[in-house]
């Protein structure tokens, strides 16, 4: 006898009409999240006359890459890409470098103000970038660091989320390991930066990916901290493509948008598992 299809929770799926309805919903949901991307790509392959004449034509009349050429010509794309990637890398690296000893200390060492210190770190979750940016801007302006990579990286040096995550992971590391390393003569620095990272690889990877993606995509902070295109990041550059006044050239904007979305989607495709771990671990 043919086994009735089951859902994840082990129960039978029900009568045909219900399954058809489910199927229709599935297709609908899939379309709702996929069609916009497809439309973005389709638009990017059109030419200006096509956009003006028939902007909603479902397919381009031919495969034209002139929009991509124009988008790349309108800005120093490689420069922005480099800025963005470098910035995201530096931030993630700095966050890990700062969070490791802090998390180790908060998880493993007994000292008087441990609880207070932990609460203080967690409290910073209540002070997001949008609250800090004005004073930080004023501060950086005074020391002449506005519009530099430092302005983009340093303010994010501490990640409360990262510290929290690493602390959680460290709680699961047996004390005996650390004691043994100490007996072997390892210094505390060596323990923090040599012994622990391999043990924390899953958490570190998840956090690195999450932080890298988040800051790569960041628009607000680079917007308020940069004034010209020296350290301008890609999201800002692409957003500038919607030049107003003489007709927005949508095919070029969408071409730029495709270029902007690709790296994030690439990371997602290759490292989905880790990203998801970071997202769901946050709930633990």
């Amino acid at each position, binding site marked *: 006898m043919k086994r009735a299809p089951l859902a994840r*929770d082990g129960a039978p799926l029900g009568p045909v009409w219900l399954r058809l309805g489910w199927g229709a919903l599935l297709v609908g949901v899939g379309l709702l999240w996929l069609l916009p991307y497809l439309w973005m790509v389709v638009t990017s392959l059109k030419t200006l006359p096509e956009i003006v004449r028939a902007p909603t034509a479902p397919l381009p009349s031919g495969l034209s890459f002139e929009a991509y050429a124009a988008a790349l010509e309108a800005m120093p794309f490689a420069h922005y890409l480099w800025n963005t990637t470098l910035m995201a890398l530096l931030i993630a690296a700095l966050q890990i470098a700062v969070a490791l000893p802090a998390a180790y200390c908060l998880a493993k*060492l007994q000292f008087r103000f441990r*609880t207070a210190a932990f609460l203080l770190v967690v409290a910073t*979750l209540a002070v997001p970038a949008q609250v800090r940016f004005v004073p930080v801007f004023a*501060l950086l302006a005074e020391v002449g660091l506005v519009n530099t990579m430092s302005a983009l990286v340093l303010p994010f040096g501490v990640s409360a989320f990262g510290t929290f995550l690493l602390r959680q992971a460290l709680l699961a590391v047996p004390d005996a390991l650390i004691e043994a390393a100490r007996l072997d003569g390892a210094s505390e620095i060596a323990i923090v930066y040599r012994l622990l990272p391999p043990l924390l690889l899953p958490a570190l990877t998840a956090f690195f990916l999450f932080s890298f993606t988040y800051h790569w995509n960041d628009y607000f902070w680079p917007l308020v901290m940069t004034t010209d295109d020296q350290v301008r990041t890609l*999201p800002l550059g692409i957003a500038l493509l919607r030049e107003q006044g003489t007709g927005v050239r949508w095919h070029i904007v969408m071409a730029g948008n495709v270029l902007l979305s690709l790296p*994030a989607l690439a990371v997602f495709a290759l490292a989905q598992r880790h990203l998801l771990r970071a997202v769901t671990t946050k*709930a633990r």
Partner: protein
Amino acid sequence: MALVPRRRTDPLWMLAPTALLLAVFFFYPLLHAVHTSLHRWDLLTEPRFVGTANYRSLWESGDLLHWTTTTVLFSLVVVTGATGLGLGLALLLNRPGRLVGFVRSAVFSAYVVSWVSVALLWLWVLDADAGALNGLLGFFGFEAVPWLGSPRLALLAVAGVTLWKIAGYGMVLFLAGLQDVPPALLEAAALDGAGRLARFWHITWPLLRPTTLFVVTTSLIASFQVFDVVRVMTQGGPVHATTVFVYAIYEQVFVNLRVGRASAAIVVFFVLLAALTALQLWAWTRRDPSARAPRGSHP
């Protein structure tokens, strides 16, 4: 669990970088914001002390009320949508199959790309004259809708775009929560004759409560911090209909050059956020008791 530090000063240097960065980039800015909120400053000339004038101006001009209601309205739509949609998607997509897996990835991928990507994409789709959505409506004989041009619709449209982007996050969390439900419980209930709805209501839903709480509080905080999508799509308009708090602060600083007034708004905003964050932390610790700070015993 706790080891004795090798040297008494070990915790100090381990926490020093964190402490330094926090002091400079978190706590000092808060104090500075409070200080600046009592002055009138345009960044170009010297600040001038004005006491509580900025706060009074925010209140009397109706701006504070307007920004708060806009943000709260926006939040309401986004939070209920994200939770409902997240749960719905999780329930729909909680089954094996390659197609289902692909759809799950598609939904979550919107969460991974930047806000600018999503905003530009929907700016194009929702364009009143050349956008695909109105094109589709026109194809079926409906009139074109000014999605971003009507003060009433714009906020809804922006909320909708936000939902499109973050639904995947809720979905993933609910999926994880659903997988935590012991199958044995559900099988037993099915054997006892409970229908789908009854099984969901009596077994699954109560077990999902911590997750729901978490999704609600997280999307609440996220919705209060929205900026990119407003900046790219509507610049706070039309007629300030989409001027949420963060955008209002940005506008005060960078367009109106009223840094004192903006700082006052920041202080108010911070108070609101702190309350919401406390709420989230409470939900966070309820989700997993071991995450609590080591203070007392766990329930």
